[in-house]
């Protein structure tokens, strides 16, 4: 049975909006031009390639359903557990749980236990894992060899995939331009194409070199180890991606109407409207946002705890809390963009084309929507992309503090939170933290690089030099 959670619905909405936006942009030259500049930027395209992997994971994880239980007489029953397409693909990862901690690529648990031997004797030793390295008869000697062998195979596989993708890309490009395959390949190889395809392919190669061995090894090992209750850490990290993406994108969706409406209204109408809006956001800005968020989150949590009947499944409950977190983050973070938009509108309203519209008696609403709004959209876009990574990080911090997402929801913040105590353990359990950290690092770095490329392409001040000298 398909399940559409609130955040899923909003993500679909966002996706639809993005698709519509792309269609509109493709038709209009002046809107397309800055995006072409983004496409021509090397770091931007490299970052975009990395982001595609994250987006794919996040989107797959946003199609939810409840699996049917075994048929027991006429009526079909559905499990209370809500799964996603991603869970389905990663069934192995999800179900291969151990008893407790195990190190990355280990065949034994991390803690000694009393093991009853076949002859009834009890020894205290590291027990074998149920899944990790279970196929090896003698892990002590064979493990390293097996891992290397499998990695080598995986690298070969990665190479094959890469070659296939690269060949496909070149063939597609060659067909589009109507030139020979060989010439096209040479152009791409020497970086002669306008869009830096060679950078894209290099990044793709780097990603495949990391991703494919991980994927191959994860069939027989726990690549990032397991956590306290024996869940595969790689699985947790992958699931966290969606949470991060949801926070990063939906929050902006919440804050946009506030920032746009109030910012433009303040700048355009000036006078008392400006005063009121300015007072509101200055006041909001002067309250520490963590305090505000903590208060709001705790209130919603108590409400949810008191009304358990509202939620059909645990996932729905966790999801709603995530949505509330987005809303609250959105409400506290619109002030920055609002201020920017107010300033820009103050400048625009004195532009002569606005005055020309006023001289025609064009209505205020039309001036706002047709003349001002399209001319501030570049600022909105730049700040949205820049904000994304900040929000992903904010989620991690808030969950760490304990006012973030529902504890049952997997996110970078909850991963870090549960791993923090184990850092004090001797020997240290470091892998959960490492996994969360490296995933988040790559995601945020890619998002930041992409944001830089977008800003360079859209910010008029960056282009002034070119315009002047042209």
């Amino acid at each position: 049975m398909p399940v559409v959670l609130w955040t899923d619905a909003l993500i679909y909405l966002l996706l639809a909006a993005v698709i519509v936006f792309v269609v509109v942009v493709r038709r209009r030259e002046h809107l397309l031009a800055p995006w072409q500049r983004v496409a021509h930027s090397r770091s931007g395209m490299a970052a975009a390639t990395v982001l595609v992997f994250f987006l794919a994971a996040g989107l797959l994880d946003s199609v939810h359903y409840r699996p049917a239980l075994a048929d027991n007489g006429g009526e079909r029953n559905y499990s209370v557990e809500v799964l996603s397409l991603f869970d389905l693909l990663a069934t192995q990862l999800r179900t291969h749980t151990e008893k407790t901690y195990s190190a990355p690529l280990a065949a034994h648990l991390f803690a000694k236990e009393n093991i009853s031997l076949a002859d009834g004797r009890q020894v205290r030793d590291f027990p074998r894992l149920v899944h990790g390295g279970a196929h090896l008869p003698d892990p002590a000697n064979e493990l390293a060899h097996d891992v290397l062998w499998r990695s080598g195979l995986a690298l070969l596989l990665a190479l094959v995939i890469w070659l296939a993708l690269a060949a496909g890309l070149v063939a597609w490009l060659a067909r589009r331009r109507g030139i020979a395959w060989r010439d096209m390949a040479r152009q791409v190889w020497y970086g002669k194409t306008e869009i830096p395809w060679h950078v894209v392919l290099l990044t793709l190669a780097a990603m495949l070199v990391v991703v494919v061995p991980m994927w191959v090894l994860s069939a027989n090992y726990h690549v990032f180890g397991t956590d306290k209750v024996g869940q595969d850490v790689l699985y947790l990290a992958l699931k966290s991606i969606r949470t991060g993406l949801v926070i990063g994108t939906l929050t902006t969706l919440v804050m946009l109407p506030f920032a746009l409406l109030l910012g433009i209204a303040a700048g355009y109408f000036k006078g008392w409207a400006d005063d009121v809006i300015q007072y509101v956001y200055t006041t909001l800005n002067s309250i520490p946002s963590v305090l505000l968020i903590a208060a709001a989150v705790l209130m919603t949590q108590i409400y949810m705890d008191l009304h358990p009947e509202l939620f059909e499944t645990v996932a729905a409950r966790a999801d709603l809390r995530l949505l509330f977190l987005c809303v609250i983050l959105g409400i506290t973070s619109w002030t920055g963009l609002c201020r920017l938009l107010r300033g820009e509108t103050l400048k625009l309203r004195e532009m002569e084309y606005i005055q020309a519209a006023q001289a025609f008696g064009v209505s205020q609403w039309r001036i706002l929507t047709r003349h001002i709004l399209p001319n501030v959209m570049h600022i909105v876009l730049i700040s949205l992309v820049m904000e994304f990574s900040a929000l992903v990080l904010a989620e991690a911090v808030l969950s760490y503090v304990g006012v973030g997402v529902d504890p049952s929801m997997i996110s970078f913040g909850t991963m870090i939170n549960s791993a923090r105590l184990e850092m004090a353990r001797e020997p240290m359990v470091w892998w959960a933290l490492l996994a969360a950290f490296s995933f988040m690092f790559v995601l945020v770095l890619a998002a930041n690089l992409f944001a830089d490329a977008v800003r360079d392409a859209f910010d008029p001040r960056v282009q002034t030099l070119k315009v002047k000298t042209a």
Partner: protein
Amino acid sequence: MSLLHVENLQTVLDTGGSVRPVDGVTFDIARGETFALLGESGCGKSLTALSIMRLLPEVGRIAGGLVRLQDGDALDLLALPETAMRNLRGKRMAMIFQEPAASLNPVMTVGEQIAEVLERHAGLRGEAQQQRVLELLDAVGISDAVRRARDYPFQMSGGMKQRVMIAIALACAPDLLIADEPTTALDVTIQAQVLELLRELQHKNGMALLLITHDLGVVAEMAHRVAVMYAGEIVEIASREQFFSRPLHPYTQKLFAALPQKGKARLATIPGTVPMLNREFPCCRFADRCEHAWALCREQAPAWTLLEGGRGVRCHLYEEHVAGSAWSVAKSEEPEGTRMSHPPPVTRYPLLQVESLRVHFPIRKGVLQRVSGYVKAVDGVSFDIAAGRTLALVGESGCGKTTVGKSILRLIEPSAGTVRFGGENIGALRRDRMRMLRSQLQIIFQDPYASLNPRMRVAESIEEGMAALETVADAAARMRRVDELLAQVGLSAAMKYRYPHEFSGGQRQRIAIARALAVRPRLIVCDEPTSALDVSVQAQILNLLKQLQDELGLAYLFITHNIAVVEFLAHEVAVMYLGRIVECGSAEEILNTPRHPYTQALLSAAPRLESAGERRVIKLSGELPSPINPPPGCHFHPRCPHAMPQCRGEYPQASRFSATHHAHCYLYPSNPLNDGA
């Protein structure tokens, strides 16, 4: 021997493709000479100067050529290391830029900024340095130098800042001063002061001056020799006398013909635009726009031809071996503008009557935003415009002329006074009635780049007014009207789906005119519609405005500071000074017999092509006072050469000279028998 020798200088800008804004420029400047580099925007004048100083933007590089600064031993500027260049800049050669406000550091006092140069190049410190700073400020005509040296740039007016820039440039008595459009951002009266100062200083110091300008008037006043640049090349070099008596290159001739002048019915225009410089030119660069062009011009680039008298030109017409080499063309050259054939029909029905219009902006201070005073931008202005006539509102920047235009349209609400349009009092109209009236009153703005929404297609921009005012309700009919309008302003209907960035400045201004015409107005307020445009483009727009007036019977309120444009277009002229009209009359009356001292000064300060020696420039001291606190009595008395004690007392009454001509000045007996206007 020449001081600066530039030979075959080539500069390339690497922006995507390589653009060659300076492509084989050769000239010499002698010691003590003023060499003017003339050309329209985008032809490579400024980049030539920057190449000589080696101050090119990051994307630019010098691809070849030779720049030699001669002083006993020759210095090859292009071969010098950057450190040596730094010793030269400011010391042997200095540069002043167009925008004085952007060239000075806002957080340093002007004294410090001058001292900085002295310390770097002359090694002056302490007392001697201060002494020299004061001397320099004195030399550039800044009175009270001791106090002024401690001022920050924001405390000075535009003209003063440019003087400070000149002082900085002259600090080490350079051999060569490069002035890049030094007066373009300044008002005519201030421009006259600055040019005078440059001339004086040059005379005293004997330095060479490379003057970059687009203004033929400035060239006529200043230059000893003139070079005309077009599309990265010098097309003509001549002495001033030769140049103004007989320009040779067809481009130069066109530039002269395009200048607005009294009595010309139409101005000559140059079709097309300056070609893109990102390609090779196997042909003459001007061939596509030249009416003398023949097959050879499109096949072969003309070589530099030296003619008698040391002048040179780059045109096939003057090459000796070319058949049909035509000095004759230059000789038979007749001013392109045909003489005005018939005076426009005189209708005396006043379409717009403005009576003691006041616009005061409150100055608020303190926490409670209490009004502590007013900026009296417009302070009692009255005039009439008849249907089908043009009233030119003339004045320097800051005198309130734009505010008058906007308050007539109620883009700015007037504080007092009445504006009647076709008998209806606009100020008292309710919103909906005002909206109806908006179709009859339109405005065209100064900056063609800011006056069109960059995110809207041309058709949408033009259509917007019709849709908002519901003059044409049906969408298909509106589109037909858009086509019609585009044809009317000389653009093709196929262009309507393009965005503004695809058009040049002149084309944008045409679109702005089409947009205003869309609602069939009877009066258009033209707020300096040509001041941002090149001369040849300005000519096109002025022709268009005139033609539209003849065809549609439009009335214009033409706001401008350019006297030449006034001569060409205006029927009546009103001269504004500090929020008030000081003189008003028909164009002939004002231009031939100006009565008010300010009008006289304004007219004399405008640079003219006629030899500069003959005319007497009335020098105005000082600058426009602040409209927050205008001088008591006649606003003009602190700068007036004829000021009398009584000028300080009360604002003078109108003195009438004819039915149309009056001025506010104590030099003439006041006769307010006719209404006090």
